[in-house]
Structures are given as C-alpha cells and as structure tokens.
C-alpha cells in the first residue's frame, strides 16, 4: 500500500514537472498605451505587456512569396496584426511574421541580436537607437528606395528626420514622434487667484505661480522627478537645452555640462526643490508616474509628461479640471523628442520588400493608427485622433522638439548625470561640483575606458 502510494507520488511529481516546463505559448497581454512610462520620453514609451512571441520562422525563399520577420513592441500587439493584414492584401507575395518584445530589456536584446547578425528583416527602433545601429553597419541604407518610391521627406518633422540620418544617408523612416507638454490643474489655479486660462509661459512664471499656489492653497506647485534616472534627466535636460546649453559637445566626444548655461539650468532645477520648495517633500522618491498620480489626486498643481498620460489622468480622476500647454520656456523652448522609427536590417532577405513595409508603416494614413502618440508626418497633424484641444500643445511641441545625441552610451551618460546630480539635490555637493564630477566620468566613458 505504502509502495503504491510512493510510486503514485513520483508519477505526480514527474507529471507536474513536465507540465510546468512544457509551458507552451502564454497568451500575451497587450500593453497599455504607454501608460506606465518609467523611461524618459527620449526613448519612447513602452507598454507593460508580458507577451512572448510566435517564433518567427524565416522560411519562404524560392520564388513567389517572400516571408519577412518584423520585431515590434508588445504595446502594439493589438494594432500591428491589423496593419499587417492590410499590407499583405495590398502586397501579395510578401508575408510578414511579427515578434513582440516587452520594453524592458528590448534595447539589449536588439543590440545583441544585431551584433550577431541574428536580427529580423524589419525592426522597430526607438529614436535613440537608429543611428548607433546604422553606425554599427546593421541597417540598410534605404536612400535609393526613398528616391525610387518618391517618399516625400519634407513631410516629416525635422527632429525625427535627424534620428534616421547617418552620414547624410537615410537608414529608417520615422513613424511616431512625441514631445512632452505641461499639465496644469485649472481649479487649483483659480483657488490660488491665478487665471485658469493662463498657464505659465516662461519657467520663471512657473516658479512664481507655484509659490503663489503654495501660499494660497498649501499645495505643491510642480511635480519634479527626483528618482528614476530617465525621468530625472528628461526634466533636467529640458532645462539645460532650453537655456542654450547642451549635454555633450558638437561631435559627441566630451561633456558640455560645465558650461555656464548648463550649470545655470541645473541650478534652477535644484533650487526648485531646495530653495523655492515648489515641489513636494516626496520629490526624491517620485518618478513621473507618481507625479501623474499626485496630479490626478490634486496633490500637485502641475506636471510634465507625454500625451499618453491624458487618458490615464482622466481615468484616475474623471472630474479633474485640467488643461495642457507648451512647456514653459527659458531662453528658448527645446522639448526633447521621443518616438520610434522603422528600418530594414543588413540581413534582410529582400530589402525592397522590407522597405515597402517600412514605407507603409510611416505613411500619412497608417502612421497615425500605428503610433500610440503622434505621427511623424506633418500632413497627418490634422488627423481626427489629434483633434482634442488637450492634444494641441503636444502637437505644437513637435515643431520645436530636438532629438538627443544618438550614441550608444547615451543611457549610461544619463545614469552618470543622475548619480551625481542626485547628490546635489540632497545638498551633499554644489551643482558645479556635481556637474564637474559627472563630466569627468562622461569624458572617460566616451574616450572608451
């Protein structure tokens, strides 16, 4: 009796092991439309999908039908299949097999795959990745196809175009572009004696308004991101660039953070938290998602984010009376450009067919449907998706938006700046000292140490 039980137990264990390991495809959840964005806007927003892919088999050589693989993000799982169907209908003889990747770790996977020539035929890339991939020789130069198919490059905003250009040639087409804008709580403005239809136009005004709001209502004026290196540097870099400074020098070999414009901008950023106290006490532990929550629960009067947060804020608090506006200017207004491009890899089986798909995705008709934020096409600015008044400042920002230096060390540079500037935020170092230390590390990194 005991022996039979033991045998049964062993079989049960083996069986459960097989089931667990056998696994099979989990049904992938589609990511929310950029809702929980914890990366900076300059690398695009990702969804929180958990899906894994159909294994993209690249068969189909030998004649009529060519099968291409496309690597996409999990947040597009609901829209891409539809678009693929339409493309295949318009282009008999081309079949597209799509693999979806979650945002977390996407860059590393793509980088490693491309390095080993194990990548797909067509690839979706955040704006910062395209030029580094092209510099590695892993993307096709599609300038000849662009000429052949008469793609109107003037219809793309300038910012995104720079992110697909390398050595004067095009290596991808932009389809999605985004820039941040200001959200402000109209009711809190009114309560503090400010005109709810006059959001701050300059950064000085933002600080003044915040002080007034704090005085009259006790509510913090602006949601600063003290934690999460992507959010932190997004806010800091906006100030630096809008003040006429920059993070790196012209040829991306050295840090430019010790210039007076950069130091001044960084000082403004730190002063907002330490001197003027217009951001909440919890700033050092808040990332931009927490800022969104604070804004939705009316604990902060203003915050800066992408248009994907409009829906999230509405959902969190449907009664919230808020407006959107361009980010307040310093010397000028230089929002950071985020977005995505689609390109053809150097290992593509049929470069022309692959280009057709890229061109399809970046077209004025398809890109507004494919993009979770905005289309990179100027001609699509009037699309019905973008009609709502809250979206207008985001659209307008695209005209000023500037892409960040497209070098592979960009993420690490963000971390270096974040690490040193955080100590300035808590008062351990002066802003000058922090930026000098950061610059030393950045210079060493860029020199290849």
């Amino acid at each position, binding site marked *: 009796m005991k022996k039979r039980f033991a045998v049964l137990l062993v079989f049960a264990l083996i069986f459960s092991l097989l089931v667990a390991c056998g696994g099979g495809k989990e049904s992938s959840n589609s990511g929310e439309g950029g809702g929980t964005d914890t990366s900076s806007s300059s690398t695009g927003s990702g969804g929180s999908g958990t899906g894994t892919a159909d294994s993209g088999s690249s068969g189909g050589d030998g004649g009529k039908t060519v099968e291409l693989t496309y690597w996409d993000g999990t947040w597009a799982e609901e829209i891409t299949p539809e678009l693929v169907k339409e493309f295949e209908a318009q282009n008999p003889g081309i079949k597209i097999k799509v693999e979806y990747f979650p945002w977390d770790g996407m860059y*590393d996977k793509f*980088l*490693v795959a491309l*390095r080993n020539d194990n990548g797909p035929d067509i690839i979706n890339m955040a704006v910062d990745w395209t030029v580094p991939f092209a510099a590695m020789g892993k993307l096709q130069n599609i300038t000849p196809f662009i000429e052949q198919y008469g793609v109107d490059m003037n219809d793309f905003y300038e910012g995104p175009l720079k992110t697909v250009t390398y050595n004067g040639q095009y290596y991808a087409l932009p389809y999605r572009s985004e820039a941040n804008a200001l959200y402000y709580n109209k009711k809190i403005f009114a309560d503090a004696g400010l005109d709810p239809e006059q959001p701050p136009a300059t950064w000085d005004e933002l600080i003044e308004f915040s002080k007034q709001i704090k005085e009259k209502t006790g509510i913090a004026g602006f949601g600063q991101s*003290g*934690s*999460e290196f992507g959010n932190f540097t997004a806010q800091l870099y906006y100030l630096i660039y809008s003040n006429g400074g920059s993070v790196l020098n012209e040829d991306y070999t050295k840090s430019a953070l010790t210039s007076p414009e950069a130091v001044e901008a960084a000082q403004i950023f730190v002063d907002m938290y330490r001197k003027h106290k217009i951001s*909440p*006490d*919890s*700033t*050092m*532990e808040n990332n931009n998602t927490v800022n969104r*929550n*604070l804004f939705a*629960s009316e*604990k902060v009067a203003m915050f800066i984010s992408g248009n994907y947060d409009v829906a999230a804020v509405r959902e969190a608090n449907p009664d919230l009376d808020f407006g959107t506006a361009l980010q307040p200017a310093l010397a000028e207004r230089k929002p950071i450009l985020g977005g995505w491009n689609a390109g053809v890899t150097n290992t593509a089986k049929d470069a022309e067919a692959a280009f057709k798909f890229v061109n399809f995705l970046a077209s004025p008709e398809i890109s507004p449907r494919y993009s979770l934020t905005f289309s990179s096409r100027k001609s699509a600015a009037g699309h019905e998706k973008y009609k709502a008044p809250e979206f207008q400042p985001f659209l307008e920002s695209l005209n000023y938006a500037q892409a960040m230096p497209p070098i*592979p*060390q960009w*993420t*690490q540079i963000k*971390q270096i700046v974040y*690490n040193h500037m*955080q*100590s300035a*935020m*808590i008062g*351990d170092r002066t802003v000058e000292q922090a930026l000098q230390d950061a610059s030393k590390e950045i210079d060493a990194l860029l020199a*290849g140490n």
Partner: protein
Amino acid sequence: MKKWSLTDRIGYAYTAPALAVVALLMAFPLLYTFMLSFQKNDVFANETKFVGLRQFARLFEDPVFVLAIRNTVVWTAACVAFQFLLGLLAAVAINQEFVKGKTVIRLLIMVPWVLPGIVGVQTWKWSYHPDFGIINHALKSLGIISHDITWTSGSSTALLSAIIVNVWKMFPFVMLMLEAALQSVPKELKEAAYVDGARPLRIFFAVTMPHIMMTSLTVILLLTIWTFNAFTFIFALTAGGPAHKSEILSLYIYRQGFQNLNFGLASAASVVLFLLTMAFSLVYIRFFMRKGEEA
C-alpha cells in the same frame, strides 16, 4: 583504489543527475563569473580583453563601491541583530504557558515571511510615502512628528527604512526555528533552577540559552548570508538612493551588470561579494559553531 561495490555504483548512479544539475547551475556560472572578472567585457566592446586584476583595482577606486561595502556591513549587522532579537522575543513570548490561541498568533506572525518579497516591500513603500502613505499620517495624528518624514528618500532614513522592512519579513523565520529549539529545553532543568532560587532571567541565560545555542548560531549564519546577498528590499524600496546612500553590494553589482552592461566590472564585484561571504562563513563555522558543539 578501493573497489566500488555494487551498492556504491548504484548510489552514484542515483546521485549523478542531481550532481549534473548542481554542476551546470552552480559550478559553471561560478567559474564563468570568475573568468569574466579578469576581463574587460561590456556591450560596446566588440571583443573581450584579458586585463588581469584591473577590474578589481577599478572597483576599489570607485567611492560608490567602497560605500556599498560599508553600507552592506551596516545593513547586515543591523538586520541580523534585530531579526534575531525580535524573533527570540517572539519565540519566548509565544512559548509561555499562559498564552492562549498560540496557533492563531503564530499564523498572523508568519504573514510577513510568507508574503512574496515584492508584495511586502511595495506595501511598505507606499506606507512610507510622505504624500500617500499611512505611516507619516499616523505619526502626525498621534502628535509624534509635526512634519512628514521622507523615509525612503532621506539620506539618514533610507537604509533604516529598508532595515525595518527586512526585519519585519524575516523575524517570523527566527521565531519558528527558535520555538522548536525552546521546546527541546528540558522542563525539569528549568524547574530545578527555579526551586534553587534562580530568577527567570538567570534561568534563561543559564539553562535555556545553552540548549538553543546550536540552533541560534545556525539561524544567525543563515540570516547573515541571506541578508548579505539581499537585493529586493533595497532595489524596490530605495533603489540605492538617494545618491547611493543606501546602496549595498548586490545593488552595485546589478547596476554595473544590467544597467551599465559592464559585465567585467560586475563580475569582479560579484567575486568580492562571494569571497566576503565565504570568508565570514568559514570563520564563523570554525570558531563559533565548533565551540557551540563542544559546549
């Protein structure tokens, strides 16, 4: 050469699969990490270079690494001390005869340990938050503080807030282990001491402690190794912040390896962590646990 009997051979055949798993999942990664620590290997370089001990030199030149080691020592010492003390207190308390509803109390106390790490940490993280959290709210209502404390982002409180969460999570384990040990203390010895006029505290130190010494020492060793390597608490609660004030070795390794993609440096740091843990364990077992056995 001893001739392998049939029983020997059957024995080895049965353990061979398990040994293979251990070799593959433990020995191989360990050796590979050792190899990596002598190389310059990151995602930008197109080949890996052998650089000897340079990665280790780089580590000790990095003030953040040195700070991380210091923080790790403080973190481990504080966590283990309080986990043990609180667990001991709980075990002794629940062991008293007059306590009713022992099962229910034990169940409730087990909750922190049983809860998945991330879940517990996230709950604490929101409780600590100055704007949304209940801790500051409660403290203010009771009049203990007048101004919100930034628990997880304050220079002086970040590590402390993580220590509190770790103690909360692990003391049930200590209680469980020690309770079993306490049960094994012969009641007659305690009663005899009582009759002889010894006070309860003296009884505890003279009679109870020696009997739970072996278990206690084992528990402390386990806690130390676990806490030394603990990652979830600091990662999810403070992310090593602000400005590295609460950064510990495991987080430093993670940052170098998975954020900076500098595998050579991360491996070197891992080797340091491994050696420190190994050194501690060897010294501890040799000196404390041998003595404990003899006692």
